[in-house]
C-alpha cells in the first residue's frame, strides 16, 4: 500500500518514479511517463496493443508489475526511432502499408522488433506466430507479415 521508488531505463533514459507496487508497467509508461504510443485494448492480456520490450524481450505491459522492472531497460515504440531516423521495421511498415487505424501498430512493431533481433531467416509460419499475441482488426496481418519478412531478408538496413 505504501508507495515505492522504481528506477529503470525507458528508451535509453534513466527514470525514477514513485508508485504503488500494484501499478502495471503499462500505467507507468502511459500515465506517469507520458509515452502514449503504447496502447491498451483489453483487460485480459489478449490484444498485445500494450507490448513493449523489456531487456530486448517483448512483454505485454498490462501483465507486468512495473515494480518488477527495477533496473531493467524498457523500450517503447517511441524508442525505435533514433534522432529522426526510422528503424528498419518502421520503414518496412510504411512501404507495405502494414497498418490502418494504427492502434495495434506500436505493439506490432515491438513484437516484430524483438522477433527480428533473434530470428535467423525465419519461415512465414514462424513470422506469423511471432505476432500471434497481437490482435489487428484492420489489416488481416498479411501486410505486417510481408514487412517483417522483408526486414528478416535484409531488405532494410539500419540508417
Amino acid at each position, binding site marked *: 500500500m505504501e508507495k515505492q521508488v522504481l528506477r529503470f531505463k525507458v528508451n535509453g533514459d534513466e527514470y525514477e518514479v514513485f508508485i504503488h507496487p500494484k501499478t502495471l508497467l503499462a500505467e507507468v509508461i502511459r500515465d506517469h511517463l507520458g*509515452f*502514449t*504510443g*503504447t*496502447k*491498451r*485494448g*483489453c*483487460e*485480459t492480456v*489478449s*490484444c498485445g*496493443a500494450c507490448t513493449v520490450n523489456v531487456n530486448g524481450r517483448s512483454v505485454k505491459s498490462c501483465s507486468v508489475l512495473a515494480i518488477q522492472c527495477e533496473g531493467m531497460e524498457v523500450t*517503447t*515504440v*517511441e524508442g*525505435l*526511432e533514433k534522432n529522426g531516423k*526510422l528503424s528498419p521495421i*518502421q520503414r518496412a*511498415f*510504411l*512501404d*507495405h*502499408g502494414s*497498418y*490502418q*487505424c*494504427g*492502434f*495495434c*501498430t*506500436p505493439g506490432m*512493431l515491438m513484437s516484430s522488433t524483438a522477433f527480428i533481433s533473434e530470428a535467423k531467416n525465419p519461415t512465414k*509460419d514462424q*513470422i*506469423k*506466430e511471432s*505476432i*500471434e499475441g*497481437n*490482435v*489487428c*482488426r*484492420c*489489416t*488481416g*496481418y*498479411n*501486410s*505486417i*507479415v510481408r514487412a517483417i519478412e522483408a526486414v528478416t531478408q535484409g531488405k532494410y538496413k539500419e540508417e
Partner: protein
Amino acid sequence: MSHAKYSVINTHVHNIDGVAKVTGRATYTFDVKLPGMLYGKILRSPHPHARIISIDATRAMELSGVKIVVTGKDTLGIKQGIWRRYEELCDEQVLPLEKVRYIGEPVAAVAAVTEEIAEMALDLIDVEYEVLPAVYEPLEAIKKEAPTIHEGVERNVNVTRHIEWGDVDEAFDEADYIREDWFKCSGQAHMCMETRAAVSSFTPEGKLTCWASTQSAYYTQGLLAGVLGLREGDVRVLAPYVGGGFGGKFELDAAMFCSAVMSMKLFKPVKVVFTREEDFIASKRRTPMFYYVRTGIKKDGTFCARESRMFSNGGAYTGMGATALYLSGFFHSFPYKWRGYRYDGYRVYTNTLPSTSMRGFGAPQAMFCSEQQIDWICADLGLDPFEVRRKNGHTEGYEVPGQAFIASCGLEQCINEIEKWVKAKGKLPANRGIGISSCGFMSGGIFNWFDSPYSFSSAVITINVDGTCELHVGCQDIGQGSNTTMAIIAAETLGVKVEDIRVHSGDTAHCPADLGAWGSRQTLMAGNAVKMACEDAKKQLLEFAYAEMGINIVYDLDIKDRWVHIVARPERGLPYGDLVKKALRAKDGQRIMGRGYYTPHRKGMISPAYSYMMQAVDAEVDPETGKIKIHEVMTAHDCGQPINQLGLVGQLEGAASMALGYAYLEDMPFEDGKMMNPNLVDYKVIKAPEMPEAGIIEIDTYEPEGPYGAKEAGEGLTNPTAAALGNAIYNAMGIQMKELPITPERVRKALREKKEQEAQK
C-alpha cells in the same frame, strides 16, 4: 494502363498518416489528457428488462474524489436516434429515465479525480429495480404473449421493409424448380482496437468541445447538440486518430453523452473510455438475422423469382438497424436479374444488445443465404455454378426495377477470372474444397434519414504562396485511409504531388460538414467534392496562366507534376510554384481557394454506383474433429478505377480477415440476455496464424459517377466470404451449413446427419 494516364492515382503512395502511426506520435481520443481532467465511469444494468424504481448516489458522493453522479433525471431525457428524421425511430435515452431494456444499458455515470475512484464509486450507487419479464429472440418477441419492450410498439415490431418488383407469383409459375431454405445468421462485434472513448470539455461561455472516437464528427455534433439542448454551432467535435470503426461508431454512444453531461455540470473536462467488456456488452453489434429464402429457376439455369422473409434481432433500440434491414433485402437480390423479387424484412425489438450497421451493412448475412442456396440449386439440377451466375448476373446498363441503375459492372470478368483460378488449382486432396460467391455493394447511400441540411460531402482547398495546399474535408479517416485517398485525388486534379497536400479532417470547427465514414461513401462522394474543389482552384490558376503566357486562348492548358503547360506542347510552360506566386499578387494577396461538394440526385433508391466481385475460398475440414482450416482466399474485384493502391490491398485483406472471422470463429452467445463471452479470450477474432493468403485480381471498369471512375472498395469485400466458405465445405464434404458461425461442432453434426441419411437410402 491507368498508370500511364495518371501521375498519382493508383501509384505506390504511403499513407499520409503513416509516420505518425509507426512512431507512436498518432494520438487517439484514448490518449487525450487535458489539464484538470476528470475520469468518468458508467454504471450498467444487470437486468435485461427492468423498471428503475430509484437511484441513490449518497454513498458514492461521500467517497473522497468523487465529483458527480448523474442519472437520466439530470438530462433533458430526450429520446435520440441516428434516424433523426423519423421521430418513432428515435427511441433511445442514453441514460434512461423509466426502464432498462438490455444487460449493460447505462443507468448512471460518475466522474472522479481518478479512474480508480470512479470505478469504486460505481459499487456505492444503490439502484432499486422492478425486474420485468424479458424476451431475447425475434420469433418469440412477436408473439401475442411476449412482453412489450417499447410502450405502444405492437408485437415489438420495430421497423418493416417490403421490397418488390415484377410479378413474383407469375414468375414463380414459370420456374421448373423451386427451392426453399431457412438460415440463421449470427451477430458479430465490431471489436475496434480502440474502444468507445470521449473527452468532453464544457466552458463557461456555453461552448462544448468533444474529442470522440467517431466515424462522423458531424453526426456526433448534431446528435450531441440535440440531446444537450445546445446549438450545433456551439458544439465542436474533434475526431483525432480513430482506432477503427467498422460501422459501430457513428451513433451517439454513452462515452460521448455521459462525458458531455457531466462536463456541462462541472465545467471541467471529463474523459470516459469503455473497457473491452463494456465495448462488447454495451456498444452495438452486427444484426443477427433469420432468413427464409424461396427461389424459382428454369431447367436451363435462368432465374425466375425469389421471395424472402427476414426476421432480424434488433435488440433494445433502433440505431442504424433500420438501414441494415433495407440494405440486406436489397443486396439479397444481388448481383442477379430477377423477373420477380419480393422481400419482407422485419426488425424486432428484444431485450438484448442493440444491433446496428457493421461492415457489409446486412449484406454478408443476405449473401450467406443467397450464394449458398444458388450452389445447392445448381447441384440439385446439375448446373455449373459459374455458368449460372454469368447467365443471370448484372450487366452494364441494367436497371434493378425501381431501385437502381447499374452504370458500370465488371461482374462477368470477375466470374471469368475466378473460374480460371479455380480450374488452375486442379483436383484437391480429400476433405478439401473451393467455394465461390459473388456479390456487389453500394458506393455510398443516397438516403438522408439524418435529415442533414448540408450537402453529403464538401471540401475546400486553399493554396499557399509556395504552392503547398491545405485541403479541408469533413470525411473521416478511421484507418481506412480516406485522408490519403483524398490527398491523391487532390494532387492528381491540381497537378501537384501528394506531399504538397496537407489534409485537415475530423474537426467540425474547421472542416465542412460531411456525413462521414459509412456505407462505403467517402471515395465516391467526398472524392467528388475534393475533385470539384481542386478543379475550381485549378481553373482560377489557369486564368492567370493564360494571361502570363500570352498564348492563343484556343490552346488547352494543364498542370502535371507541378508543371503548368500547353497540353499540345508540354515543353512550353512555367513552374506551378511561380504561377501561384504571381496569381497571389494579381489577386491583391487573396489566396486561391477552391470549393467543392457532392449531393446525389436522381441516382435511384440506394446508391450512385455499385462495386462487383467474386470470391473463392479454399478450405479444408478435419472430418473427425470438424475443425476448419482456410488455405487461401482469392477475390476478383471491380471497384472501378483504383485510387489508393496500398489502401486497396489493405482493405481486401482486412475484409477477408473480418469476414472469415464472421464465417467460422466469431460468435456472441447470449444466455438470459447476458453475453457469455465479452472478452478477447472467449471472443475469437482471427490472428496471424489463421490468416490465409488473400489475393486480389483487379477488374478495371470506369464508373461515370465516381471521381476518376472510382467506386466502393473495402466494405463490400466483407459480403461474399461466409457463403464462399460454406460452399467450400459443401464441395469438400457434401454438407449444407445453414447457421453461422460454422463451428467444428456444427460441421460434425451435419456430417452425422449426412451419414444417417445415406444409411436410410
